[in-house]
């Protein structure tokens, strides 16, 4: 049994006719009863408009789940198209029943054609995003792409840290961040940007034993004068060296984005710190 073999012309003609009739019916209905939309979709337009203001329009900068949210909130034409399609299917099924003709294929057409329209709209949005991304990233090296990405300034800073401050071979780093104020995007990317170094992310409220780490990075200290730096460094030392075997920290670089310290276990304090020429111990805590 195979009942899906009607001619294309007939299927298309019936589907299109039903869709056209459906448009007319809906047009009349919505012109006569404009409040029907609000009744059918309560507060939807308002909610979507709110989300549209909150979420950035995707231009290559939106991140992860925001990107999905952008897609998911980009339109509310779906229920209207569904209504249009459903009405057309209903017309075809009723007509098929009345005429005792099989209306499955035209009804399927009345679903597929609106689906194709929705898909064309999505493809058009996708093309727009591709054009935006092309302007931003096309024909650029991966380094240039990172620089032009949302966290380009942070990428540049960490690259300079890798080339100018840290040794070439892999080091163990503890990166302290403030979960309340530091950008999570910036924090989460840091271990990747700092490769081949081995990075542990730690909250600035955590006290841990960093004596087996090589360096400590403290995000966003925002300190200008040396007196403030000294007070601040003792706090960093308490956070990083209070527990365990104890250690001392030497300030290697002070920057508005992050301070970098080298870690010296207490046992090695008598020896000169490697890679920390000119640095002074800023504090030591041990058991």
């Amino acid at each position, binding site marked *: 049994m195979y009942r899906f073999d009607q001619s294309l012309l007939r299927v298309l003609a019936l589907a299109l006719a039903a869709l056209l009739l459906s448009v007319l019916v809906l047009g009349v209905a919505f012109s006569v009863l404009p409040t029907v939309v609000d009744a059918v979709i309560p507060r939807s337009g308002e909610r979507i408009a709110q989300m549209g203001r909150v979420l950035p329009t995707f231009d290559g900068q939106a991140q992860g*789940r925001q990107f999905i949210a952008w897609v998911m909130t980009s339109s509310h034409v779906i229920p209207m198209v569904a209504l249009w399609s459903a009405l057309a299917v209903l017309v075809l099924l009723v007509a098929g029943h009345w005429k005792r003709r099989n209306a*499955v294929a035209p009804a399927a057409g009345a679903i*597929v054609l609106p689906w194709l329209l929705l898909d064309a709209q999505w*493809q058009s949005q996708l093309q727009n995003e591709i054009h935006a991304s092309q302007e931003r990233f*096309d024909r650029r090296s991966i380094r240039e792409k990172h620089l032009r990405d949302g966290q380009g300034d942070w990428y540049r800073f960490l690259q300079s840290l890798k080339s100018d401050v840290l040794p070439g071979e892999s080091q163990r780093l503890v990166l302290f961040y403030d979960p309340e104020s530091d950008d999570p995007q910036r924090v989460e990317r840091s271990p990747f940007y700092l*490769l081949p170094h081995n990075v542990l992310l730690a909250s600035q409220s955590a006290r841990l034993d960093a004596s087996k780490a090589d360096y400590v990075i403290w995000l966003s200290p925002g300190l200008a004068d040396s007196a403030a730096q000294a007070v601040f460094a003792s706090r960093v030392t308490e956070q990083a060296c209070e527990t365990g075997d104890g250690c001392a920290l030497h300030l290697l670089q002070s920057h508005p984005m992050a301070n970098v310290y080298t870690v010296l276990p207490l046992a090695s304090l008598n020896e000169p710190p490697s890679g920390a020429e000119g640095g002074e111990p800023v504090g030591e805590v041990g058991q």
Partner: protein
Amino acid sequence: MNAESAVAGLLCSLLLPWFCGGLWAYWWLGRSGRYNLYSLAGQGFVLGIALVIGLICGADALGMQLQFWPLASVLAGLSVLALVVQRLFPNPVLPQAHWEPIPRWHMVAVGLLMAAIVWRHVSLLEVLMLRPVFTPEAWSDGVLPAFVWFAQGSLTPFVEDREWLLAAGEVYANNSAPAPRATSLVQLWSLLGTGGFDNSFIFLPWLLVPTALGLALFGHLRLAGVPTILACIASYSLLSLPVVNEYTVLHGYWEIWLTLSFSLGVFALHQWRLTGHWSWASWCLFLAALCPAFASSGVVFAALLCLGLCWAWAFRRLPLAPVALRWGVQMVLVAALVVPALWLFSHPHSIFMGSPLSVEALSIEQLGTALYDGIFLQSGWHLLWFVLLGLLFLRRIPRGLLQWPEARWMVTLAALVWGLVQFRFTAAGSGDFANLSAALLPAVPPLVFCLFLSGARQVSDVQ
């Protein structure tokens, strides 16, 4: 590594596992005498990826340096072995298929839909190749281990904070929630293949996932007797969904891999229900075992597939049993679903959720609002959920759903319910619908499969 050898390695890393997996799938599933090229292509892709993951882990366990060409040689050897095994133990010869005459316009429509699918995936390829890695989870979860392992040439452990601080050896810090590493291993395989030539290349396997999914869906619908044009519309409707497209280009996300494993498991389950052949049952078990490799919540989907096998077994063994016995078996199987679910509800910090849990779950009203907004108003699903509602309204979905639902429906509906539960416990505070799409995604391809099987019964003889 220069561009030529990077491209050669890339192509080899993409196609060789698929080829090898396809050959073994042909031998394995061919024993049942019920297969076609498309179903083998889809199922073979998953087996190929599983072989890659196993090879990398095996080589590392043996203390070997992880290098691409030695591993690729093993895969090539396995491909040759599959041909030898096929020669020694040939599959039963399929009877000559009787092809229904297909109207020419059907072929035209199929061609147009194929063109639309290809165009969409070319667009997605552009997106994948243009953007740098940009998803928050990807930075810590997937990408970092892959790059570390690539640089080290071995699977260096990622450990918790305390262990990292105490360790003197070469271990890396696991800066996110513990998660299975299969997606990182897939990225590592691409990195090894391209020699780290361009980071954008490492996500190309993500583009093959919907391709394999679409092929498998088409193939299994055709196996069930669904007309070519309807099977093609089914594949198109799945691959055109913006949500599926999104998870294809979200670098490093595991959702699309879990969706692939679970969906193909449901397809295999349906084939086993029809044939009763061990090859499809064992394949379904293999896919169930693969689900937890991609995500913590994969344990739940693996359990659903195993329960589906039990359900299908009972369906096969007890079709004429007394009603009371059938009801008894159903109750036992439903209890096997419900009791663990209730346990999970009472232990909301269970690892099975797969996402960071909110302290506060959504209320039923919030859940209803989110569902209404997320699946009926937003553009991520096109008309999928409306079609489901329409078929329910027109009673095209099996009327016996509450008497003895088929295993595919049972597992699909259970996966949908699980998705809602997961969303309820992980959505609070996220402020968007991303969690909803992630939670529902694994159930969507099986849902499309079930919908088209049920819908096609109206127009042709479908099993």
